[in-house]
């Protein structure tokens, strides 16, 4: 990697005059098409050198301090960025089929803002949707790791800048006036003498008939931005509130009848035989029954009849590979696998902990779902997917169809949280459609989504701080988890990136860890390493991947360091954090009224994290008094509504280089805070004999209204305009520091450092697990009695 500048640029508080990326060779293309179409290509590298200075002993730089996952993705996607294409049609509207997938994070709205800004067109005329899977996109069609805004913005701006320039040049030619006399605004090119022509009218005139490269198009300076930086509501909000937003399950594809799968009594169990196939085939509404790799698929007139049939099936199973595993066996193996920490310095004092994090399901509210129509000569699939190319290729392989005969439509997802990185839902649908020779709408039952869906792998995070007097001598963190499946493909990115790094060899998992963890503190010699144990569970990168567990362990240890040194949590951080974090810490302390007197059992905590090119501090206030912990939810129709310690206030402070959509980023911070609260306090799954006991939301406790704070403050610091951090990712950034901050507050309130997460996990099970056989529960019938 070459550095594009010798020393870090000073932080700016004013928008820079020019957003022109410095010293880069930029190429875009006018694409041959009947109306104006533009694509882009960027060459060149950007890596900033690490900087360090704080009161403590400087830490050695960690990989992510100067080259993180966003940088890797940016590098890796450069050569396919020319497939970012923007078209202007003669209706004056702008169309962009994005390789990005939308699962609720609002990325399509932000990309529409970028287009509206750079093209000077009203945002109502901008249409952005998820493109079908296209092999040519390669890693540009990977939505994950909060990379999209950082990676996709520049090519998109360049494409729009070229399009605008082409329209202005065309208008100038039409009117026989110099191009300099023209301006563009609101989808119209204006001449000096009152001439005006709409983009729609220019779109044909400005089109080219051979691909034409363009160098260094003029990008609008950030100081002139009118759309970027202003709050923008979601463009799909109207559909969402009227029930007209079309999710996969809402599609009306002819003959794609409801289909569900009867799954095994433990993870990855396989079917030996089905004892009553014919009987079930004759049940009311059922059209087809058959064995696919994940179980026995049933197709019927309604999902209600699918549930009846799934419950009626009698199936013999061969146990899966983890049938003997339970929470205890897994945690024991993990503890044994943590590599020993480096030897202690003689005379040093030590703070050392093992923090245990249990399984947690990242199931979204929309369960796994796909529509598939697989025929002899081709297949069409509709499903939410963050890496649709791999899904499409897998389906092609399995059905024996050539890749170009498999059309994969990427649907907006009803949440992802890392689930849609994989495509078991689409594969199940393709398998069933292939087997039955009919279209299917295959949906996972809620209970299957918890028990057979992917999970956040459990981990033991071992942390040690050594110190002497008021000096920290070293920091070590050995994070050891069950293997987190990155099989969706990061391997190529890792190897491409590793080839450019001089920080040694990594496995893909260790590489991914290394490009996401930065050092934050000046703790002298420091290290954070990742180790994993291969046990074949279904795992995946849950929102914010390793960092919630890693940050929680680190921040709890920092509090104990402060305790030992007689410093409160804010002071110990200000003493050892790099200076760039002081701003967010001060702000969180100020907004949260740090140190205000609180009754026994109620306390504050603070935590920091830097990732996705955004710095965060989160302050939490928690109430652990028995009267609060034992509060009841009114009128529960069921058992299992857990309460427990109550977060009463949470303050989230974020500092980014350039916030594109303050309303959108605040939404993501709110959301991330609710995730952080859940994984710190209540949300996990209990593994028993190779399967989670949890089968619904009344067993696995994502944050609910009765556990969410009444007081949530979200503060965005002024943009710093640091060029290399511009713009940062938002979807995951709050989860880690929020979890850590809740854990720190809990430790302060109870006077005990919690070492197992979520805190609820080891308490007596507050629910009766749904039966394992049959694999899914029947719907209740008392709906009318419970109406309110």
């Amino acid at each position, binding site marked *: 990697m070459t550095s594009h500048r010798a020393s870090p640029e000073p932080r700016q508080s004013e928008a820079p005059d020019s957003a022109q990326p410095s010293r880069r060779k930029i190429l875009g293309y006018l694409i041959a098409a009947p109306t104006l179409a533009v694509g882009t290509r960027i060459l060149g590298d950007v890596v900033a050198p690490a900087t360090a200075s704080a009161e403590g002993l400087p830490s050695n730089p960690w990989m992510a301090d100067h080259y993180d996952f966003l940088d890797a993705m940016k590098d890796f996607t450069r050569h396919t960025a020319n497939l970012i294409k923007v078209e202007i049609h003669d209706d004056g509207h702008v169309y962009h089929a994005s390789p990005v997938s939308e699962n609720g994070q609002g990325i399509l709205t932000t990309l529409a803002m970028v287009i509206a800004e750079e093209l000077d067109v009203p945002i109502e005329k901008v249409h952005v949707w998820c493109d079908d899977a296209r092999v040519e996109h390669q890693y540009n069609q990977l939505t994950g790791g909060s990379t999209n805004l950082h990676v996709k913005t520049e090519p998109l701006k360049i494409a729009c800048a070229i399009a605008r320039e082409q329209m202005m040049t065309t208008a100038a030619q039409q009117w026989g006036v110099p191009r300099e006399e023209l301006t563009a605004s609101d989808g119209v090119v204006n001449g000096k003498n009152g001439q005006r022509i709409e983009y729609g009218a220019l779109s044909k005139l400005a089109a080219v008939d051979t691909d034409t490269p363009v160098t260094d198009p003029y990008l609008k300076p950030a100081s002139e931005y009118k759309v970027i930086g202003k709050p923008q509501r*979601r463009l799909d909000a109207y559909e969402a509130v009227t029930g007209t937003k079309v999710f996969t399950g809402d599609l009306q594809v002819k003959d794609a009848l409801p289909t569900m799968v009867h799954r095994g009594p433990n993870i990855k169990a396989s079917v030996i035989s089905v004892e009553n196939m014919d009987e079930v085939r004759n049940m009311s509404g059922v059209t087809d029954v058959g064995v696919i790799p994940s179980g026995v698929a049933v197709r019927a007139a*309604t999902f209600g009849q699918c549930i009846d049939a799934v419950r009626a099936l009698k199936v013999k199973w061969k146990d899966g590979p983890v049938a003997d595993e339970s929470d205890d066996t897994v945690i024991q193996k993990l503890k044994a696998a943590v590599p020993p920490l480096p030897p202690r310095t003689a005379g040093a004092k030590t703070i050392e902990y093992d923090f245990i994090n249990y399984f947690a399901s990242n199931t979204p509210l929309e369960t796994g779902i796909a529509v598939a129509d697989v025929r002899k000569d081709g297949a069409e699939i509709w499903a939410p997917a963050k890496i649709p190319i791999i899904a499409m290729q897998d389906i092609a392989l399995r059905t024996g169809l050539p890749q170009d005969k498999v059309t994969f439509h990427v649907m907006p997802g009803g949440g992802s949280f890392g689930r849609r990185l994989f495509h078991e839902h689409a594969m199940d649908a393709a398998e069933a459609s292939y087997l039955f020779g009919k279209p299917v709408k295959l949906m996972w039952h809620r209970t299957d989504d918890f028990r057979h869906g992917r999970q956040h792998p459990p981990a033991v995070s071992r942390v040690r701080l050594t110190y002497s007097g008021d000096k920290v001598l070293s920091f070590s963190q050995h994070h050891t988890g069950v293997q987190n499946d990155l099989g969706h493909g990061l391997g190529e990115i890792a190897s491409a990136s590793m080839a450019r790094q001089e920080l040694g060899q990594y496995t893909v998992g260790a590489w991914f860890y290394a490009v996401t963890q930065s050092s934050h503190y000046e703790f002298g010699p420091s290290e954070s390493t990742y180790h994993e144990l291969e046990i074949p569970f279904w795992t995946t990168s849950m929102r914010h991947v390793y960092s919630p567990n890693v940050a929680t362990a680190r921040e709890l240890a920092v509090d104990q360091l402060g305790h030992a040194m007689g410093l409160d949590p804010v002071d110990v951080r200000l003493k050892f954090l790099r200076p760039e974090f002081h701003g967010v810490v001060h702000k969180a302390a100020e907004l949260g009224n740090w140190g205000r007197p609180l009754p026994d059992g109620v306390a504050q905590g603070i935590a920091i994290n830097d990732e996705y090119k955004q710095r965060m501090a989160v302050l939490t206030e928690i109430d652990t008094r028995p009267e609060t912990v034992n509060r009841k939810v009114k009128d529960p129709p069921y058992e299992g509504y857990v309460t427990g310690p109550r977060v009463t206030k949470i303050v989230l402070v974020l500092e980014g280089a350039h916030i594109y959509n303050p309303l959108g980023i605040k939404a993501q911070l709110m959301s991330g805070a609710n995730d952080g609260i859940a994984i710190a306090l209540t949300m996990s799954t209990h593994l028993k004999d190779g399967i989670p006991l949890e089968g619904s939301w009344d067993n696995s406790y994502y944050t609910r209204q009765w556990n969410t704070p009444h007081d949530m403050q979200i503060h965005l610091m002024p943009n710093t305009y640091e060029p290399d951090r511009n713009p940062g990712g938002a979807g995951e950034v709050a989860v880690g520091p929020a979890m850590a901050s809740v854990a720190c507050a809990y430790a302060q309130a109870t006077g005990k450092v919690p070492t197992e997460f979520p805190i609820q996990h080891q308490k007596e099970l507050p629910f009766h697990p749904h039966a394992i056989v049959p694999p899914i529960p029947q719907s209740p019938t008392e709906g009318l009695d419970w109406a*309110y």
Partner: protein
Amino acid sequence: MPEHTFKLNGKRITVEAPDHVRLLWVLRDLLSVTGPKYGCGLAVCQACTSHINGKATNICAVPVGDLNPDDEVVTIEGLADTVGKDLHPMQEAWLEHDVAQCGYCQPGQIMAAVAHVRKSREEGVPLDDDYMDNIKNICRCGTYQRIREAIKDGAEGM
């Protein structure tokens, strides 16, 4: 096959289905009314919340055979019509506060919100943050704070 007649979003309809099939599936799979969502089928997540005779109901837990010809079922698609507008004030408030993220839970959230406003008024208790602690609808995208703000505003328009 048994026939069932009831009012759906202002129109009387008749549909054929076994008695025990839950209303959620009758609407979604047989009648293509897809506003109410499936999130559990266990009367837990509340994504399917719709109104039956004005009361918020988990229609995943209502066998279609339980309905009578005069029962009025209103789904998110029919909510605005109940006030004779393009959008119900609660939907307006939802837009105003930019509540939806993935949007999957939001039809159920809005239907529940409208019922909670009515219920709090009937009970004569204030619709404050403590009251809203009892709303059962899950939002896995964690939009709870904006939901609360939107409910307070939406209630003013009701």
